Protein backbone atom coordinates (compact mmCIF):
# COMPACT_ATOMS: atom_id res chain seq x y z
CA UNK A 1 0.00 0.00 0.00
CA UNK A 2 2.67 2.39 1.09
CA UNK A 3 4.58 1.56 -2.02
CA UNK A 4 1.63 2.53 -4.10
CA UNK A 5 0.98 5.71 -2.18
CA UNK A 6 4.52 6.94 -1.87
CA UNK A 7 5.10 7.64 -5.55
CA UNK A 8 1.81 9.43 -5.53
CA UNK A 9 2.83 11.61 -2.64
CA UNK A 10 6.22 12.20 -4.16
CA UNK A 11 4.60 13.17 -7.40
CA UNK A 12 2.19 15.38 -5.54
CA UNK A 13 5.00 16.98 -3.61
CA UNK A 14 6.98 17.45 -6.76
CA UNK A 15 3.97 18.98 -8.42
CA UNK A 16 3.51 21.34 -5.50
CA UNK A 17 7.13 22.31 -5.57
CA UNK A 18 7.14 22.67 -9.29
CA UNK A 19 4.10 24.82 -9.00
CA UNK A 20 5.72 26.95 -6.30
CA UNK A 21 8.92 27.17 -8.25
CA UNK A 22 7.04 28.03 -11.40
CA UNK A 23 5.02 30.70 -9.69
CA UNK A 24 8.15 32.15 -8.13
CA UNK A 25 9.93 32.01 -11.45
CA UNK A 26 7.11 33.77 -13.24
CA UNK A 27 6.95 36.36 -10.50
CA UNK A 28 10.70 36.90 -10.65
CA UNK A 29 10.62 37.28 -14.39
CA UNK A 30 7.77 39.72 -14.04
CA UNK A 31 9.75 41.70 -11.48
CA UNK A 32 12.79 41.81 -13.71
CA UNK A 33 10.73 42.81 -16.72
CA UNK A 34 8.94 45.56 -14.85
CA UNK A 35 12.18 46.78 -13.30
CA UNK A 36 13.88 46.82 -16.68
CA UNK A 37 10.97 48.71 -18.14
CA UNK A 38 11.22 51.19 -15.31
CA UNK A 39 14.89 51.73 -15.96
CA UNK A 40 14.34 52.14 -19.68
CA UNK A 41 11.41 54.50 -19.39
CA UNK A 42 11.42 57.93 -17.87
CA UNK A 43 10.96 61.57 -18.57
CA UNK A 44 14.49 62.08 -19.86
CA UNK A 45 15.50 60.63 -23.23
CA UNK A 46 18.61 58.57 -22.86
CA UNK A 47 20.11 56.61 -25.72
CA UNK A 48 20.18 52.88 -25.13
CA UNK A 49 23.94 52.87 -25.74
CA UNK A 50 24.45 55.18 -22.81
CA UNK A 51 21.95 53.32 -20.73
CA UNK A 52 23.67 49.98 -20.35
CA UNK A 53 27.00 51.19 -18.96
CA UNK A 54 25.20 53.80 -16.91
CA UNK A 55 23.05 51.17 -15.30
CA UNK A 56 26.17 49.63 -13.86
CA UNK A 57 27.62 52.90 -12.71
CA UNK A 58 29.99 53.10 -15.66
CA UNK A 59 28.64 55.95 -17.72
CA UNK A 60 28.96 59.60 -17.01
CA UNK A 61 27.05 62.82 -17.26
CA UNK A 62 23.32 62.92 -17.65
CA UNK A 63 22.96 59.23 -18.46
CA UNK A 64 24.93 58.22 -15.40
CA UNK A 65 22.88 60.45 -13.16
CA UNK A 66 19.52 59.59 -14.54
CA UNK A 67 20.04 55.88 -14.82
CA UNK A 68 22.40 55.09 -12.01
CA UNK A 69 21.36 57.65 -9.44
CA UNK A 70 17.65 57.79 -10.15
CA UNK A 71 16.12 54.95 -12.05
CA UNK A 72 18.16 52.01 -10.81
CA UNK A 73 17.88 52.83 -7.12
CA UNK A 74 14.22 53.60 -7.59
CA UNK A 75 13.54 50.27 -9.20
CA UNK A 76 15.52 48.52 -6.50
CA UNK A 77 13.78 50.35 -3.70
CA UNK A 78 10.44 49.43 -5.26
CA UNK A 79 11.42 45.80 -5.48
CA UNK A 80 12.93 45.55 -2.03
CA UNK A 81 10.32 47.51 -0.15
CA UNK A 82 7.58 45.54 -1.88
CA UNK A 83 9.23 42.32 -0.76
CA UNK A 84 9.51 43.61 2.80
CA UNK A 85 5.89 44.72 2.96
CA UNK A 86 4.80 41.41 1.50
CA UNK A 87 6.84 39.44 3.99
CA UNK A 88 5.71 41.46 6.96
CA UNK A 89 2.05 41.11 6.06
CA UNK A 90 2.36 37.43 5.37
CA UNK A 91 4.14 36.91 8.66
CA UNK A 92 1.48 38.70 10.65
CA UNK A 93 -1.38 36.97 8.95
CA UNK A 94 0.06 33.61 9.87
CA UNK A 95 1.04 34.74 13.31
CA UNK A 96 -2.46 35.77 14.21
CA UNK A 97 -4.35 33.51 11.86
CA UNK A 98 -6.51 36.28 10.44
CA UNK A 99 -6.36 37.80 6.97
CA UNK A 100 -6.99 41.25 8.34
CA UNK A 101 -4.02 41.09 10.65
CA UNK A 102 -1.38 43.23 9.02
CA UNK A 103 1.22 45.41 10.69
CA UNK A 104 -1.29 48.22 10.18
CA UNK A 105 -4.07 46.71 12.21
CA UNK A 106 -1.76 45.62 14.98
CA UNK A 107 -0.65 49.20 15.44
CA UNK A 108 2.88 48.65 14.20
CA UNK A 109 2.73 51.07 11.29
CA UNK A 110 1.10 53.62 13.53
CA UNK A 111 3.95 53.23 15.97
CA UNK A 112 6.49 53.77 13.23
CA UNK A 113 4.67 56.84 11.96
CA UNK A 114 4.31 58.31 15.41
CA UNK A 115 7.98 57.92 16.22
CA UNK A 116 9.06 59.22 12.83
CA UNK A 117 6.74 62.20 12.99
CA UNK A 118 7.86 62.97 16.50
CA UNK A 119 11.50 63.26 15.55
CA UNK A 120 10.58 65.02 12.31
CA UNK A 121 8.83 67.74 14.23
CA UNK A 122 11.82 67.92 16.55
CA UNK A 123 13.84 68.74 13.47
CA UNK A 124 15.70 65.53 12.82
CA UNK A 125 16.44 64.52 9.26
CA UNK A 126 17.54 61.53 7.26
CA UNK A 127 18.75 58.48 9.06
CA UNK A 128 17.51 59.68 12.43
CA UNK A 129 13.95 59.53 11.15
CA UNK A 130 14.40 56.03 9.83
CA UNK A 131 15.99 54.74 12.97
CA UNK A 132 13.28 56.20 15.13
CA UNK A 133 10.59 54.73 12.87
CA UNK A 134 12.06 51.30 13.33
CA UNK A 135 12.50 51.81 17.05
CA UNK A 136 8.92 53.04 17.29
CA UNK A 137 7.55 50.05 15.42
CA UNK A 138 9.52 47.45 17.31
CA UNK A 139 8.74 49.22 20.56
CA UNK A 140 5.04 49.12 19.84
CA UNK A 141 5.26 45.47 18.88
CA UNK A 142 6.98 44.64 22.14
CA UNK A 143 4.51 46.71 24.11
CA UNK A 144 1.56 45.03 22.43
CA UNK A 145 3.01 41.65 23.19
CA UNK A 146 3.75 42.43 26.81
CA UNK A 147 0.38 44.02 27.43
CA UNK A 148 -1.38 41.02 26.00
CA UNK A 149 0.71 38.56 27.96
CA UNK A 150 -1.23 36.48 30.38
CA UNK A 151 0.20 32.99 30.62
CA UNK A 152 0.95 33.04 26.99
CA UNK A 153 -0.52 35.28 24.39
CA UNK A 154 -3.75 34.42 22.68
CA UNK A 155 -3.90 35.82 19.17
CA UNK A 156 -7.26 37.36 19.91
CA UNK A 157 -5.99 39.36 22.83
CA UNK A 158 -2.91 40.31 20.87
CA UNK A 159 -5.05 41.81 18.18
CA UNK A 160 -7.29 43.68 20.60
CA UNK A 161 -4.36 45.21 22.40
CA UNK A 162 -2.73 45.98 19.07
CA UNK A 163 -5.79 47.86 17.90
CA UNK A 164 -5.82 49.90 21.09
CA UNK A 165 -2.14 50.78 21.08
CA UNK A 166 -2.26 51.48 17.37
CA UNK A 167 -5.14 53.88 17.87
CA UNK A 168 -3.13 55.77 20.45
CA UNK A 169 -0.10 55.89 18.22
CA UNK A 170 -1.98 57.19 15.23
CA UNK A 171 -3.66 59.78 17.41
CA UNK A 172 -0.20 60.97 18.38
CA UNK A 173 0.74 61.20 14.73
CA UNK A 174 -2.35 63.10 13.74
CA UNK A 175 -1.83 65.43 16.64
CA UNK A 176 1.78 66.09 15.74
CA UNK A 177 0.94 66.64 12.11
CA UNK A 178 -1.79 69.12 12.87
CA UNK A 179 0.45 70.88 15.36
CA UNK A 180 3.27 71.19 12.91
CA UNK A 181 1.17 73.92 11.40
CA UNK A 182 3.00 74.52 8.19
CA UNK A 183 3.33 70.98 7.00
CA UNK A 184 2.97 71.28 3.30
CA UNK A 185 0.35 69.38 1.46
CA UNK A 186 3.05 67.93 -0.72
CA UNK A 187 4.95 66.48 2.15
CA UNK A 188 1.91 65.29 3.98
CA UNK A 189 0.79 63.49 0.85
CA UNK A 190 4.12 61.86 0.40
CA UNK A 191 4.08 60.75 4.00
CA UNK A 192 0.58 59.41 3.83
CA UNK A 193 0.53 57.69 0.49
CA UNK A 194 4.02 56.36 0.09
CA UNK A 195 6.24 57.49 -2.72
CA UNK A 196 9.46 56.24 -4.22
CA UNK A 197 10.50 59.61 -5.52
CA UNK A 198 13.18 59.96 -2.88
CA UNK A 199 14.74 56.57 -3.61
CA UNK A 200 18.52 56.55 -3.43
CA UNK A 201 21.34 54.10 -2.93
CA UNK A 202 21.43 54.56 0.82
CA UNK A 203 17.85 53.38 0.90
CA UNK A 204 18.68 50.43 -1.32
CA UNK A 205 21.42 49.26 0.99
CA UNK A 206 19.29 49.63 4.08
CA UNK A 207 16.47 47.67 2.48
CA UNK A 208 18.78 45.02 1.15
CA UNK A 209 20.40 44.52 4.51
CA UNK A 210 17.01 44.33 6.18
CA UNK A 211 15.73 41.85 3.64
CA UNK A 212 18.81 39.69 4.07
CA UNK A 213 18.62 39.70 7.85
CA UNK A 214 14.87 39.28 7.71
CA UNK A 215 15.10 36.36 5.32
CA UNK A 216 17.55 34.55 7.55
CA UNK A 217 15.45 35.14 10.65
CA UNK A 218 12.34 34.12 8.79
CA UNK A 219 14.06 30.92 7.77
CA UNK A 220 14.47 30.12 11.43
CA UNK A 221 10.90 31.04 12.16
CA UNK A 222 9.19 29.55 9.13
CA UNK A 223 9.30 25.91 10.19
CA UNK A 224 7.73 26.78 13.49
CA UNK A 225 5.16 28.97 11.77
CA UNK A 226 4.02 25.97 9.77
CA UNK A 227 2.77 24.41 12.98
CA UNK A 228 1.04 27.58 14.19
CA UNK A 229 -1.95 26.93 12.02
CA UNK A 230 -2.70 23.75 13.98
CA UNK A 231 -3.39 25.71 17.12
CA UNK A 232 -1.08 26.54 19.98
CA UNK A 233 -1.39 23.18 21.72
CA UNK A 234 -0.45 21.08 18.76
CA UNK A 235 2.23 23.51 17.74
CA UNK A 236 3.78 23.11 21.16
CA UNK A 237 3.38 19.36 20.95
CA UNK A 238 5.28 19.39 17.71
CA UNK A 239 8.20 21.12 19.36
CA UNK A 240 7.50 24.77 18.61
CA UNK A 241 8.08 27.24 21.39
CA UNK A 242 4.90 29.06 20.77
CA UNK A 243 5.24 32.21 22.85
CA UNK A 244 8.83 32.78 21.99
CA UNK A 245 8.19 32.32 18.31
CA UNK A 246 5.18 34.58 18.43
CA UNK A 247 7.14 37.31 20.14
CA UNK A 248 10.08 36.93 17.79
CA UNK A 249 7.93 36.97 14.68
CA UNK A 250 6.02 39.96 15.94
CA UNK A 251 9.21 41.93 16.35
CA UNK A 252 10.58 40.68 13.07
CA UNK A 253 7.49 41.67 11.14
CA UNK A 254 7.49 45.04 12.86
CA UNK A 255 11.09 45.60 11.92
CA UNK A 256 10.57 44.65 8.30
CA UNK A 257 7.50 46.80 7.88
CA UNK A 258 9.07 49.73 9.70
CA UNK A 259 12.24 49.81 7.66
CA UNK A 260 10.28 49.74 4.45
CA UNK A 261 7.88 52.38 5.71
CA UNK A 262 10.68 54.65 6.83
CA UNK A 263 12.08 54.71 3.32
CA UNK A 264 9.04 54.78 1.11
CA UNK A 265 6.27 55.88 3.44
CA UNK A 266 3.38 53.56 4.06
CA UNK A 267 2.75 51.94 0.69
CA UNK A 268 -0.75 50.74 1.28
CA UNK A 269 -2.31 47.40 0.74
CA UNK A 270 0.78 45.42 -0.19
CA UNK A 271 1.08 43.90 3.26
CA UNK A 272 -2.59 42.98 3.24
CA UNK A 273 -2.78 41.52 -0.22
CA UNK A 274 0.56 39.81 -0.77
CA UNK A 275 -0.06 36.93 1.61
CA UNK A 276 -3.52 35.88 0.42
CA UNK A 277 -2.52 36.36 -3.22
CA UNK A 278 0.59 34.25 -2.82
CA UNK A 279 -1.32 31.58 -0.93
CA UNK A 280 -3.85 31.34 -3.71
CA UNK A 281 -1.20 31.30 -6.40
CA UNK A 282 0.91 28.52 -4.94
CA UNK A 283 -2.06 26.88 -3.21
CA UNK A 284 -0.42 26.67 0.18
CA UNK A 285 -0.62 28.93 3.16
CA UNK A 286 3.06 28.94 4.01
CA UNK A 287 4.36 30.72 0.97
CA UNK A 288 6.75 33.28 2.38
CA UNK A 289 8.93 33.51 -0.68
CA UNK A 290 5.97 33.84 -2.97
CA UNK A 291 4.49 36.49 -0.68
CA UNK A 292 7.70 38.51 -0.88
CA UNK A 293 7.77 38.16 -4.63
CA UNK A 294 4.12 39.11 -4.99
CA UNK A 295 4.80 42.16 -2.86
CA UNK A 296 7.74 43.07 -5.04
CA UNK A 297 5.79 42.58 -8.27
CA UNK A 298 2.99 44.76 -7.04
CA UNK A 299 5.19 47.64 -6.00
CA UNK A 300 7.46 47.50 -9.05
CA UNK A 301 4.53 47.31 -11.42
CA UNK A 302 2.74 50.03 -9.52
CA UNK A 303 5.79 52.22 -9.70
CA UNK A 304 6.09 51.63 -13.41
CA UNK A 305 2.50 52.68 -13.89
CA UNK A 306 2.88 55.58 -11.51
CA UNK A 307 5.75 56.89 -13.56
CA UNK A 308 4.77 56.15 -17.11
CA UNK A 309 1.06 55.61 -17.51
CA UNK A 310 -0.54 58.14 -19.81
CA UNK A 311 -2.83 60.77 -18.26
CA UNK A 312 -2.02 59.99 -14.67
CA UNK A 313 1.76 59.81 -14.30
CA UNK A 314 3.62 60.81 -12.33
CA UNK A 315 1.79 60.04 -9.12
CA UNK A 316 2.93 58.60 -5.81
CA UNK A 317 3.42 54.87 -6.13
CA UNK A 318 1.30 54.12 -3.09
CA UNK A 319 -1.72 55.34 -4.98
CA UNK A 320 -1.34 52.62 -7.60
CA UNK A 321 -0.54 49.50 -5.60
CA UNK A 322 -4.13 48.82 -4.74
CA UNK A 323 -5.25 49.27 -8.32
CA UNK A 324 -3.01 46.36 -9.21
CA UNK A 325 -3.35 44.19 -6.14
CA UNK A 326 -7.02 44.46 -5.34
CA UNK A 327 -8.51 43.30 -8.66
CA UNK A 328 -6.08 40.39 -8.69
CA UNK A 329 -7.21 39.47 -5.23
CA UNK A 330 -10.86 39.74 -6.11
CA UNK A 331 -10.32 37.64 -9.21
CA UNK A 332 -8.60 34.90 -7.25
CA UNK A 333 -11.23 35.16 -4.57
CA UNK A 334 -13.99 34.52 -7.05
CA UNK A 335 -12.25 32.00 -9.26
CA UNK A 336 -9.72 30.36 -6.98
CA UNK A 337 -10.22 26.74 -6.11
CA UNK A 338 -11.26 26.19 -2.59
CA UNK A 339 -7.86 25.02 -1.52
CA UNK A 340 -5.70 27.83 -0.27
Amino acid at each position, binding site marked *: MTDALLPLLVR*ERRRDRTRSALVCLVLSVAILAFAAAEILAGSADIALDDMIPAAFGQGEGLAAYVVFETRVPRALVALLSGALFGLAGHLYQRLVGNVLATPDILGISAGASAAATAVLTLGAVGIGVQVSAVVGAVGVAALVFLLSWHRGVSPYRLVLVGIGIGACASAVTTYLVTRADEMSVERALRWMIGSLSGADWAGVWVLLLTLAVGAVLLLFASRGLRTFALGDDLAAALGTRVSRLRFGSLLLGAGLAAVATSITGPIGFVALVAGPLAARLVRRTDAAVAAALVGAVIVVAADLIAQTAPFISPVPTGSITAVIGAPALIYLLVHGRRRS
Partner: protein
Amino acid sequence: MTAVPPIAEDRSDGPHSDILRAEAIRVGYDTRVVIDGLDVGFPVGSITALVGPNASGKSTLLKALARLLPLQAGQVLLDGAALQTMSSRVIAQRLGVLPQSPLAPEGITVADLVSRGRHPHGRLLRRSGVDDLRVVADALVVTGTAELADRPVESLSGGQRQRVWIAMALAQQTSLLLLDEPTTYLDIAHQIEVLDLLADLRAAASKTIVMVLHDLEQAAAYADRLLVLSEGRLVAEGPPREVLTEQLVQDVFGLRSRIIPDPDTGTPLILPRGRHSSSPTPQEIP
Protein backbone atom coordinates in the same frame (compact mmCIF):
# COMPACT_ATOMS: atom_id res chain seq x y z
CA MET B 1 -0.41 -4.71 8.30
CA THR B 2 1.50 -7.90 8.83
CA ALA B 3 1.28 -10.64 11.38
CA VAL B 4 2.73 -9.65 14.70
CA PRO B 5 4.35 -11.68 17.45
CA PRO B 6 2.25 -12.30 20.52
CA ILE B 7 2.40 -9.60 23.09
CA ALA B 8 5.11 -10.17 25.62
CA GLU B 9 3.52 -9.66 28.98
CA ASP B 10 6.41 -7.85 30.56
CA ARG B 11 5.31 -5.57 33.31
CA SER B 12 8.47 -4.51 35.08
CA ASP B 13 7.38 -1.93 37.53
CA GLY B 14 10.52 -0.28 38.88
CA PRO B 15 10.47 3.49 38.46
CA HIS B 16 13.86 3.20 36.78
CA SER B 17 12.30 1.45 33.81
CA ASP B 18 9.59 4.07 33.44
CA ILE B 19 10.09 6.05 30.28
CA LEU B 20 7.73 8.70 31.57
CA ARG B 21 7.04 9.55 35.20
CA ALA B 22 4.97 12.23 36.86
CA GLU B 23 6.04 13.01 40.40
CA ALA B 24 3.77 14.84 42.77
CA ILE B 25 2.43 17.03 40.00
CA ARG B 26 -0.13 19.72 40.48
CA VAL B 27 -1.78 21.05 37.32
CA GLY B 28 -4.84 22.98 36.43
CA TYR B 29 -6.08 26.08 34.76
CA ASP B 30 -6.21 29.72 35.72
CA THR B 31 -8.42 29.39 38.74
CA ARG B 32 -8.95 25.66 38.94
CA VAL B 33 -6.51 23.07 40.25
CA VAL B 34 -7.53 19.82 38.59
CA ILE B 35 -4.88 17.40 39.69
CA ASP B 36 -2.89 17.73 42.89
CA GLY B 37 -0.09 15.53 44.08
CA LEU B 38 -0.36 12.78 41.52
CA ASP B 39 2.42 10.22 41.05
CA VAL B 40 2.36 7.89 38.11
CA GLY B 41 4.83 6.14 35.85
CA PHE B 42 4.68 4.53 32.45
CA PRO B 43 7.02 1.61 31.74
CA VAL B 44 8.70 1.31 28.37
CA GLY B 45 6.68 -0.65 25.89
CA SER B 46 3.49 -0.60 27.89
CA ILE B 47 0.01 0.31 26.83
CA THR B 48 -1.77 2.25 29.51
CA ALA B 49 -5.42 3.16 29.30
CA LEU B 50 -6.52 6.21 31.22
CA VAL B 51 -10.16 5.85 32.15
CA GLY B 52 -12.49 7.84 34.31
CA PRO B 53 -15.66 9.84 34.18
CA ASN B 54 -15.96 13.09 32.25
CA ALA B 55 -14.12 15.98 33.81
CA SER B 56 -12.07 13.68 35.99
CA GLY B 57 -8.86 15.21 34.65
CA LYS B 58 -7.78 12.72 32.02
CA SER B 59 -7.08 15.26 29.32
CA THR B 60 -5.48 17.53 31.87
CA LEU B 61 -3.12 14.78 32.98
CA LEU B 62 -2.25 13.98 29.38
CA LYS B 63 -1.51 17.61 28.64
CA ALA B 64 0.64 17.89 31.73
CA LEU B 65 2.59 14.80 30.72
CA ALA B 66 3.23 16.41 27.34
CA ARG B 67 4.11 19.74 29.01
CA LEU B 68 1.26 21.45 27.16
CA LEU B 69 0.11 22.71 30.54
CA PRO B 70 2.57 24.29 32.94
CA LEU B 71 3.10 22.34 36.14
CA GLN B 72 2.20 24.22 39.27
CA ALA B 73 4.21 21.77 41.35
CA GLY B 74 6.08 18.52 40.95
CA GLN B 75 7.82 17.35 37.84
CA VAL B 76 7.50 15.10 34.86
CA LEU B 77 10.50 12.99 33.94
CA LEU B 78 11.08 11.75 30.42
CA ASP B 79 13.70 9.01 30.56
CA GLY B 80 14.77 10.35 33.91
CA ALA B 81 15.26 13.96 32.80
CA ALA B 82 12.85 16.66 33.83
CA LEU B 83 10.70 17.80 30.92
CA GLN B 84 11.10 21.44 31.86
CA THR B 85 14.83 21.26 31.29
CA MET B 86 14.53 19.75 27.83
CA SER B 87 14.15 21.59 24.57
CA SER B 88 10.73 21.50 22.95
CA ARG B 89 12.17 19.93 19.90
CA VAL B 90 13.83 17.06 21.68
CA ILE B 91 10.62 16.37 23.57
CA ALA B 92 8.64 16.47 20.35
CA GLN B 93 10.97 13.92 18.80
CA ARG B 94 10.25 11.45 21.55
CA LEU B 95 6.71 12.17 22.59
CA GLY B 96 3.74 12.56 20.31
CA VAL B 97 0.37 13.92 21.41
CA LEU B 98 -3.10 13.71 19.97
CA PRO B 99 -5.31 16.32 21.67
CA GLN B 100 -8.95 15.63 22.33
CA SER B 101 -10.48 17.85 19.68
CA PRO B 102 -7.86 19.40 17.43
CA LEU B 103 -8.87 21.89 14.75
CA ALA B 104 -7.45 21.77 11.26
CA PRO B 105 -6.61 25.05 9.55
CA GLU B 106 -8.95 25.90 6.73
CA GLY B 107 -8.12 24.48 3.36
CA ILE B 108 -5.31 22.20 4.43
CA THR B 109 -5.15 18.83 2.68
CA VAL B 110 -4.82 15.52 4.41
CA ALA B 111 -1.31 14.85 3.14
CA ASP B 112 -0.20 18.33 4.14
CA LEU B 113 -1.64 17.98 7.61
CA VAL B 114 -0.06 14.61 8.22
CA SER B 115 3.28 15.80 6.92
CA ARG B 116 3.28 18.50 9.57
CA GLY B 117 3.77 15.69 12.02
CA ARG B 118 7.28 15.46 10.62
CA HIS B 119 8.04 18.89 11.97
CA PRO B 120 10.23 17.88 14.93
CA HIS B 121 12.44 15.87 12.61
CA GLY B 122 13.09 18.66 10.16
CA ARG B 123 16.41 20.38 9.89
CA LEU B 124 16.50 24.10 9.45
CA LEU B 125 17.43 24.20 5.82
CA ARG B 126 16.50 20.76 4.65
CA ARG B 127 13.18 20.45 2.99
CA SER B 128 11.35 17.33 3.95
CA GLY B 129 12.68 14.56 1.74
CA VAL B 130 11.48 11.27 0.41
CA ASP B 131 12.15 9.65 3.77
CA ASP B 132 9.69 11.95 5.40
CA LEU B 133 7.21 11.27 2.67
CA ARG B 134 7.61 7.56 3.20
CA VAL B 135 6.74 7.99 6.86
CA VAL B 136 3.76 10.13 5.91
CA ALA B 137 2.62 7.58 3.35
CA ASP B 138 2.99 4.82 5.92
CA ALA B 139 0.92 6.73 8.43
CA LEU B 140 -1.76 7.35 5.84
CA VAL B 141 -1.87 3.73 4.82
CA VAL B 142 -2.05 2.23 8.29
CA THR B 143 -4.84 4.58 9.29
CA GLY B 144 -6.74 3.85 6.11
CA THR B 145 -6.68 7.41 4.88
CA ALA B 146 -4.48 6.89 1.85
CA GLU B 147 -7.29 7.59 -0.62
CA LEU B 148 -8.03 10.82 1.13
CA ALA B 149 -4.51 12.24 0.75
CA ASP B 150 -5.62 14.97 -1.61
CA ARG B 151 -8.85 15.96 0.09
CA PRO B 152 -9.20 19.10 2.19
CA VAL B 153 -9.52 18.01 5.80
CA GLU B 154 -12.71 20.01 6.33
CA SER B 155 -14.53 17.98 3.71
CA LEU B 156 -14.04 14.69 5.55
CA SER B 157 -16.51 12.81 7.65
CA GLY B 158 -15.91 12.80 11.39
CA GLY B 159 -14.29 9.40 11.43
CA GLN B 160 -12.10 10.10 8.45
CA ARG B 161 -10.88 13.27 10.09
CA GLN B 162 -10.09 11.51 13.34
CA ARG B 163 -7.97 8.97 11.52
CA VAL B 164 -6.10 11.74 9.76
CA TRP B 165 -5.19 13.21 13.12
CA ILE B 166 -4.03 9.82 14.32
CA ALA B 167 -1.92 9.57 11.18
CA MET B 168 -0.33 12.87 12.02
CA ALA B 169 0.59 11.68 15.50
CA LEU B 170 2.02 8.50 14.01
CA ALA B 171 4.02 10.43 11.44
CA GLN B 172 5.79 12.09 14.31
CA GLN B 173 7.44 8.67 14.90
CA THR B 174 7.92 9.06 18.59
CA SER B 175 8.60 6.20 20.93
CA LEU B 176 5.97 7.57 23.28
CA LEU B 177 2.40 8.30 22.20
CA LEU B 178 -0.12 10.16 24.33
CA LEU B 179 -3.55 9.84 22.72
CA ASP B 180 -6.67 11.53 23.99
CA GLU B 181 -9.65 9.44 22.96
CA PRO B 182 -8.18 8.19 19.70
CA THR B 183 -11.29 6.15 18.91
CA THR B 184 -13.76 9.02 19.04
CA TYR B 185 -15.87 9.30 15.90
CA LEU B 186 -14.62 5.96 14.61
CA ASP B 187 -16.92 3.14 13.64
CA ILE B 188 -16.39 -0.07 15.54
CA ALA B 189 -14.24 -1.64 12.87
CA HIS B 190 -11.98 1.34 12.74
CA GLN B 191 -11.85 1.51 16.51
CA ILE B 192 -10.59 -2.05 16.59
CA GLU B 193 -8.26 -1.36 13.71
CA VAL B 194 -6.71 1.63 15.44
CA LEU B 195 -6.34 -0.26 18.68
CA ASP B 196 -4.82 -3.20 16.84
CA LEU B 197 -2.47 -0.81 15.15
CA LEU B 198 -1.38 0.60 18.48
CA ALA B 199 -0.84 -2.90 19.80
CA ASP B 200 1.21 -3.67 16.70
CA LEU B 201 3.30 -0.61 17.23
CA ARG B 202 3.94 -1.54 20.81
CA ALA B 203 4.87 -5.05 19.81
CA ALA B 204 6.96 -4.26 16.78
CA ALA B 205 8.59 -1.00 17.74
CA SER B 206 8.26 -1.26 21.49
CA LYS B 207 6.42 2.05 21.63
CA THR B 208 4.95 3.19 24.87
CA ILE B 209 1.36 4.20 24.58
CA VAL B 210 -0.85 6.13 26.94
CA MET B 211 -4.41 6.62 25.80
CA VAL B 212 -7.63 7.94 27.16
CA LEU B 213 -10.51 5.63 26.40
CA HIS B 214 -14.13 5.69 27.39
CA ASP B 215 -14.89 2.19 26.27
CA LEU B 216 -13.87 0.09 29.27
CA GLU B 217 -14.07 -3.16 27.33
CA GLN B 218 -11.63 -1.93 24.77
CA ALA B 219 -9.44 -0.54 27.50
CA ALA B 220 -9.47 -3.93 29.16
CA ALA B 221 -8.82 -5.77 25.93
CA TYR B 222 -5.93 -3.67 24.74
CA ALA B 223 -4.20 -2.11 27.73
CA ASP B 224 -1.68 -3.77 29.98
CA ARG B 225 -2.65 -1.45 32.67
CA LEU B 226 -5.60 0.68 33.59
CA LEU B 227 -5.31 4.00 35.39
CA VAL B 228 -8.63 5.00 36.84
CA LEU B 229 -8.98 8.69 37.49
CA SER B 230 -11.74 10.30 39.46
CA GLU B 231 -11.92 13.94 40.39
CA GLY B 232 -8.26 14.38 39.67
CA ARG B 233 -7.15 11.49 41.87
CA LEU B 234 -5.90 8.08 40.89
CA VAL B 235 -8.42 5.70 42.43
CA ALA B 236 -7.21 2.45 40.94
CA GLU B 237 -4.29 1.21 38.94
CA GLY B 238 -3.29 -2.18 37.65
CA PRO B 239 -4.07 -4.92 35.14
CA PRO B 240 -7.53 -4.45 33.68
CA ARG B 241 -8.95 -7.71 34.84
CA GLU B 242 -8.01 -6.94 38.40
CA VAL B 243 -9.05 -3.35 38.39
CA LEU B 244 -12.34 -3.59 36.56
CA THR B 245 -15.03 -4.64 38.99
CA GLU B 246 -18.70 -3.96 39.17
CA GLN B 247 -17.97 -2.13 42.38
CA LEU B 248 -15.41 0.13 40.76
CA VAL B 249 -17.72 0.96 37.89
CA GLN B 250 -20.42 1.76 40.42
CA ASP B 251 -18.10 3.83 42.62
CA VAL B 252 -16.26 5.72 39.96
CA PHE B 253 -18.84 6.13 37.25
CA GLY B 254 -21.95 5.76 39.32
CA LEU B 255 -23.14 3.17 36.82
CA ARG B 256 -24.79 -0.08 37.70
CA SER B 257 -23.35 -2.75 35.52
CA ARG B 258 -22.67 -6.37 35.22
CA ILE B 259 -19.27 -7.68 34.27
CA ILE B 260 -18.88 -11.05 32.58
CA PRO B 261 -15.89 -12.59 30.88
CA ASP B 262 -15.81 -12.71 27.11
CA PRO B 263 -16.68 -16.30 26.34
CA ASP B 264 -13.74 -16.57 23.93
CA THR B 265 -11.02 -14.32 25.22
CA GLY B 266 -11.88 -13.92 28.85
CA THR B 267 -11.53 -10.16 28.78
CA PRO B 268 -14.18 -8.52 30.87
CA LEU B 269 -17.37 -7.38 29.20
CA ILE B 270 -19.09 -4.53 30.98
CA LEU B 271 -22.81 -4.65 30.57
CA PRO B 272 -24.29 -1.35 31.67
CA ARG B 273 -27.64 -1.49 33.31
CA GLY B 274 -29.35 1.70 32.33
CA ARG B 275 -32.97 2.20 33.13
CA HIS B 276 -34.00 1.41 29.62
CA SER B 277 -31.40 -1.10 28.69
CA SER B 278 -33.44 -4.10 29.62
CA SER B 279 -36.03 -5.40 27.30
CA PRO B 280 -39.22 -6.95 28.68
CA THR B 281 -39.09 -9.94 26.42
CA PRO B 282 -35.59 -11.28 25.89
CA GLN B 283 -35.34 -12.61 22.40
CA GLU B 284 -33.10 -15.12 20.76
CA ILE B 285 -30.31 -13.66 18.77
CA PRO B 286 -30.18 -15.15 15.33
